[in-house]
């Protein structure tokens, strides 16, 4: 086992799956000779050639549209959207086409495309290089939404996504691309989609998170333990759709207190859906109202990003709230 960054794990995952299956092709802006602006595809064009690691013109709808056509044909395309903020020109292809092809054709035309895209704040990327747009896709039946928070999961979940038969939006927390390192098995393995992970076991409060927020939640949980003796369980959802509702409810029923962390704007974010599910299905177990720690209902600011994003302080405050209710 090697110690890799999350970014290296993605790279390793792509390489491993491309070696395994010649149906896998990558395409996107600057992914070839440049290896992607974050270097997630570094070295792949050299190994697999320009017909399998395809630099595209600057048009996201073209990237996803052609990827769908490749998938209909029988390939396993893995398009990259350079920043999630730039996924919107492809929104129609994703929402109207990719997510609906299998359904609208009565199962005749599945289109298993895996869209990789770096998302999220915390890199001083400002207004248009920081968004967390998962909620739009979670509300779109027909596409899975997968977000790893560790190098191990990044590679294993990516493998599952590529081997699967369904469209996947694979969101990569760019804030921790390089800062989070971990053991990653060499060669092939998979981590199943649809299973949450207990990133930290605990008994008094459940903190639900995903992607880079998992690590902020873990920090807060440490502090809560150290400073206040509160035992927090951190649930890393890993896939938002399909949701591991069983794991969510199990943790919640155990602790009776819930904090949900989501860096996207508050209104209509996925945290709301989770809160609704818990309120509907586990109200009997709740010892306190659920608290959401989220971004604000503003676009993403540049200079003030640290004030915008959920941080350990705000999570600790939420823990206080649910504990002292």
């Amino acid at each position, binding site marked *: 086992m090697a110690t890799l960054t999350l970014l290296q794990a993605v790279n390793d995952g792509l390489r491993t799956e491309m070696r395994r299956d010649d149906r896998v092709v990558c395409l996107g802006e600057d992914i070839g000779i440049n290896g992607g602006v974050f270097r997630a595809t570094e070295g792949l064009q050299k190994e697999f050639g320009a017909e399998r690691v395809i630099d595209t013109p600057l048009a996201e709808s*073209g990237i996803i549209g052609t990827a769908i056509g*490749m998938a209909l044909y029988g390939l396993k395309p893995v398009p990259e959207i350079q920043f999630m903020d730039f996924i919107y020109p492809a929104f129609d292809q994703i929402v*109207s086409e990719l997510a609906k092809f299998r359904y*609208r054709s009565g199962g*005749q035309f599945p289109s298993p495309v895996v869209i990789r895209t770096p998302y999220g704040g915390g890199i001083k990327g400002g207004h248009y290089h920081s968004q967390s747009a998962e909620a739009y896709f979670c509300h779109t039946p027909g596409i899975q939404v997968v977000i790893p928070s560790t190098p191990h999961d990044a590679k294993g979940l990516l493998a599952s996504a590529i081997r699967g038969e369904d469209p996947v939006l694979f969101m990569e927390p760019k804030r921790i691309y390089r800062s989070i390192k971990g053991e990653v098995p060499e060669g092939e393995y998979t981590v199943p989609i649809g299973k949450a992970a207990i990133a930290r076991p605990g008994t008094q409060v459940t903190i639900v998170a995903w992607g880079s927020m998992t690590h902020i939640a873990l920090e807060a949980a440490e502090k809560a333990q150290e400073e206040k003796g509160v035992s927090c369980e951190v649930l890393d959802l890993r896939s938002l759709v399909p949701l591991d509702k069983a794991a969510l409810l199990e943790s919640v029923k155990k602790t009776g207190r819930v904090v949900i962390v989501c860096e996207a704007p508050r209104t209509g974010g996925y945290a709301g859906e989770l809160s609704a599910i818990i309120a509907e299905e586990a109200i009997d177990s709740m010892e306190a109202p659920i608290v959401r720690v989220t971004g604000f209902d503003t676009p993403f600011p540049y200079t003030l990003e640290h004030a915008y994003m959920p941080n350990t302080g705000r999570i600790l405050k939420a823990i206080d709230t649910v504990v002292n209710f």
Partner: protein
Amino acid sequence: MTTEVLQVIRSDGSVQKKLEPTLSEEMLRKLYRTMVQVRALDEKGMLLQRTGKIGFYVPSGGQEASQVGAVAALDAGDWLFPTYRDPGMALWRGASFREMLAHEFGCAEDRSKGRQMPNHYAFREMKYVSISSPIATQIPQAVGAAMAAKYRKTKEIVLTSMGDGGTSEGDFHCGMNFAGVYKAPIVFYCQNNQWAISVPLSGQTASESISVKAKAYGFPGVTVDGNDVLAVYSAVRQAADRARAGGGPSFVEALTYRMGPHSSSDDPKRYRPAAEEEEWRQKDPIDRFRNYLKKQGIWTEAWEKETWDGVRADLNEATKQVEALGPPTISSMFDDVWSSIPPVLQEQKDSLIEYLKKGELKDLGGAFPL
């Protein structure tokens, strides 16, 4: 500047010999018969809609030659990314009236399981890709399939169809541009029927023709008489040969006319002059081809009658059969969202079925099987 328009059959049925494709008599008869099938299906479709048996219909009358001529120029293994106005492409490849009508009725036997409006066909084994309502989305998809065929080094090529209105969408641009860059083996095929619902071509683009748009992407474009099945055949054939030989994409614009309303919900009297319709009626693609077949000595009065009677009988029989078919089960609503049903959706399904079983079926009209 005026655009040159390729024509093979003059209006009197005589021929520009130089351009005439050499087609077998069998092929010529099949072309004619398929055009008749399209027209007959159209009449039936509008009738079924007007009598409330189906909810919606998109007629393609006037465009029989442009649909059928194009698909006929391809190999059977080539991929089609069509529009809702291309039933002729499915009929040419052997779709039965029963299959087509099962879809218009949205019944259990529909290949798409009643999930889409009429005219949004999908036939996997014919490589007739599931049609979408959102305009122009098929164009980059078709390019992707062509890139895949190229990657796989097959001899398959792809044809994608679009309307004149469709050329205005961003996806037209993305698809065309990608195809040019990758020299994808594809034919872009535009049936320019002069209108996008109520918007005439002049309100759609200021370019001197639609085919000239290919220049923006570095590959050739031609304009043909779309009511001349042989002109369409020839142009598409040439483009297909080019693609198959590794020459990359081409664009073919077929000038034609939608004789009927945009759909059963539309009333063209609101926006277009009757005189224009009349003018185009004179250019009827079936009449034109009939004149040709006459000149070739292939057509007889008896064969005409036999063809129409045969097609109509098939259609009536198919209608009867399909009217007797039932709707999809309510449970089927939850299939095919994914390759397998995830727990959250399974719960939703279970709760709906359970609710309906508890005698609440009346809410849903009663007639639907679970």
